């Protein structure tokens, strides 16, 4: 049975590694300017974790194969080097590896969170509420009108609770159900939660950020490829959580300008 354990474990290890090694399950194409650093970090970590996984499982399989139910009368012995060798190995190999990953990985995190948006980044507000995302553009005056939660009226499509009658800046605000942006232009996305916690996740942008009620959070990013990408909610928000999504449309600049003009006319 010990030998059988060894064999089964080797098979499990090889079968588990196969989809990774053959890249059967990979992240989608990266359409962001910061994503390559994340992808590199992921690849490096996969290589190191993969080696640790395969190495440890094969060692376990081999030792169980060789040292179980021995009938040859040989004595039990200790591994030369003993515990000291194990501790040294752990500190030197794993310690260096994980600290290296941690230190090297700071840049990818810093690219997303420690750089401020450029002053000319296009501001768009995203609101998450059970169970839809809505987006607001500031319009020609470049300013967002204030939000009035008591004025929210979904039936009349006043998702944000705007009061154009009394707030001048709200009059030209453009509200949409899709996040449409121009390619190669930095976007400063302001995140507003209407009711409970939600989260903004676009796989291709390599971005994920919670919407927290009561907190002014934001993201900034630049999309480098046109196309239609899914925005999905990743913070459990109630029964419609599975269905809470929107689309990110990345358009060429002139197409975006036309789109925005058309939306402004509709408001």
């Amino acid at each position, binding site marked *: 049975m010990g030998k059988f354990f060894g064999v089964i474990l080797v098979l499990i290890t090889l079968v588990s590694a196969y989809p990774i090694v053959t890249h059967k399950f990979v992240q989608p194409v990266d359409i962001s300017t910061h994503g390559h650093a994340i992808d590199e970090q992921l690849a490096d970590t996969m290589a190191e974790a993969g080696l640790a996984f395969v190495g440890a499982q094969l060692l376990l399989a081999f030792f169980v194969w060789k040292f179980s139910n021995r009938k040859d009368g040989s004595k039990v012995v200790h591994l030369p080097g003993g515990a000291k060798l194990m501790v040294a190995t752990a500190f030197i190999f794993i310690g260096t590896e994980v600290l290296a990953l941690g230190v090297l990985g700071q840049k990818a995190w810093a690219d997303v969170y420690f750089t401020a948006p450029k002053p000319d980044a296009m501001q768009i507000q995203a609101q998450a509420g059970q169970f839809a995302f809505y987006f607001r553009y500031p319009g020609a005056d470049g300013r967002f009108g204030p939000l009035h939660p008591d004025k929210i009226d979904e039936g009349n499509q006043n998702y944000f609770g705007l009061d154009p009658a009394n707030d001048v800046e709200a009059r030209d605000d453009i509200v949409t159900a899709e996040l449409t942006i121009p390619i190669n232009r930095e976007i400063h996305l302001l995140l507003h939660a209407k009711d409970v916690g939600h989260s903004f996740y676009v796989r291709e942008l390599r971005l994920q950020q919670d919407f927290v009620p009561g907190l002014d959070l934001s993201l900034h990013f630049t999309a480098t490829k046109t196309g239609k990408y899914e925005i999905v909610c990743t913070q459990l928000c109630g029964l419609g*959580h599975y269905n809470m999504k929107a689309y990110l449309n990345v358009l060429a600049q002139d197409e975006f300008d036309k789109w925005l003009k058309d939306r402004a006319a509709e408001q």
Partner: protein
Amino acid sequence: MEDAAVQPVQVHAPPEGFIRKFVFSLDHKMIGKQYYGLALMAVFMGMVLSWFMRFHLVWPDAKIPGLGAIAPTGAPGGVITPEYYLSLLTMHGTLMVFFVLTNAPFAGFGNYFLPIQIGAEDMAFPRFNMMSFWTTLVAFIVLVSAFFIPDGPPISGWTAYAPLSAVGKDAGPGLGWGQNLWAMSIALFCVGQLLGSLNFIATTLDLRAKGMTLMRMPICTWAWFITSCIGLLAFAVLLPACLLLLLDRMAGTSFFIPSGLVVSDRLQNHAGGSPLLWQHLFWFFGHPEVYIAILPAVGIVSHVLITSMRKPLLSAKVMIYSMMSIGFLSWMVWGHHMFVSGMNPFSSLLFSFPTLTITIPATIITLIWLGSLFGANIQINSASLFALGFVSMFVSGGVSGFFLAQPSIDIYLHATYFVVGHFHMVMGVAAIFGILSGTYFWFPKMSGRMMNETLGQIHFWITFVGTYCIFMPFHYLGLVGNVRRYSSFVDDFMAPLMPVHKFISIAAFITGAAQLIFLYNLIHSRFRGKIAPENPWNATSLEWSIPSPPPWNNFGDKHPVVFHDPYQYGVKGSKGDFVMQDSPEQVVGGWDK
């Protein structure tokens, strides 16, 4: 404290009558079995809930027979609604993390064996011990009652993030009295665990037999002791968190709820609270909690492996210090559950470094096991197979932690099936393997009978292969960005992943069914198993020096005296290949420590 005095004081009277023997027992052995039985009930409930979940994900329109009768609102006609899926998910997590993984390896086996392994007659506070079990049982009943109220169980997950969990029933089904019952149940559970932890600590420090220095305690005793130190501090934080949640829900306070929230078209009458406060409180408990779940299993597996290998570990001291380091570091890492939560991104980096550092003691522990297997003579049986399987699972579950510990990678993998795969491998498989290994190992001592070895091995092989088939693919799904806690997969990118989900669901049903083999073995062997000798495994620690099952006061009229550490295997010059811990037989040229 190093060399504890003999404790000849009779801790409690011999139990008389059915109620004192089997219901309100003061005997740590009965209380341990009661905890184990509760955990067994909870694990089967939790497993059935997961079957419903896996069924619904793959066949969302299927009518599940009988479910419509139990949950007419949640599953009308037996078809699970999105909200009921979330209820199943919430109760699955709550039952498994609290009532299985904290109960069985720690409160169950710890209660039964810690006093015996240190040579004591019982725990230091038998009445506290009884109260801790009964509080836990009441907590269980309160939790399960949420299934039977009209609005059903809560849908906010075992993590119950505010404001979803705090604003009340405006936010969705189950968030009225279901959430109240959840918070009350967990608060009661905390009280039970605090009483238990106090008991373990006092007993370990004060009731050790003559010669039983701290460093001569078995590794599993150390694991229970370290776990109880963590538990005392961790549950002391979760308890007030649950009380604050109840106050927000029932007394109009706003600890976790800011102003201006419009939920289901109603402006909520709260102001000033912080949803992040709940997350900090919860995870400050929640991360040490997962070490509470795994450390006893680490201890049990070490104990079983040593006996099975017929040799001690390369170094028990290194193992003990590594467990202590994990316990210490576990307090510094809670923010790794909150990298993208909106907390200061600089603190994410601060949390990342201790998280990565925990890899070091975890690797030391794994290498000590692996290195100790070299040159061993492993006796393969159900207990040792589950212990070896644990080592494999600990590695598998541990390496996915490398990814999640890094905030930059967590941007992509957070809230995906990658995370679900990680914690299921370490908790849902490895910790369970620790419980199963302990069960096969200690069943003869607890019941006086042997379990059926053939059934045990069949159980092992199906479970070992089956759990890999279930949880390894979770990681692949996560790498593609498959989001977790979704009751259906309607997104464009999900369609190609459905065959993987089908494979997982079928593996789950088969592996789950194999657990019935274990249940049958447990029950059948209890009544019809072969009579067990006092020491069927030729093991050395004190539990193997007393009858199977032990008398009410463990050591009868004897007060055990120990002469060396508990792992004298393969000793040169001894009569067999082992020396019992209470044997004065001289250790001639024994292992270098």
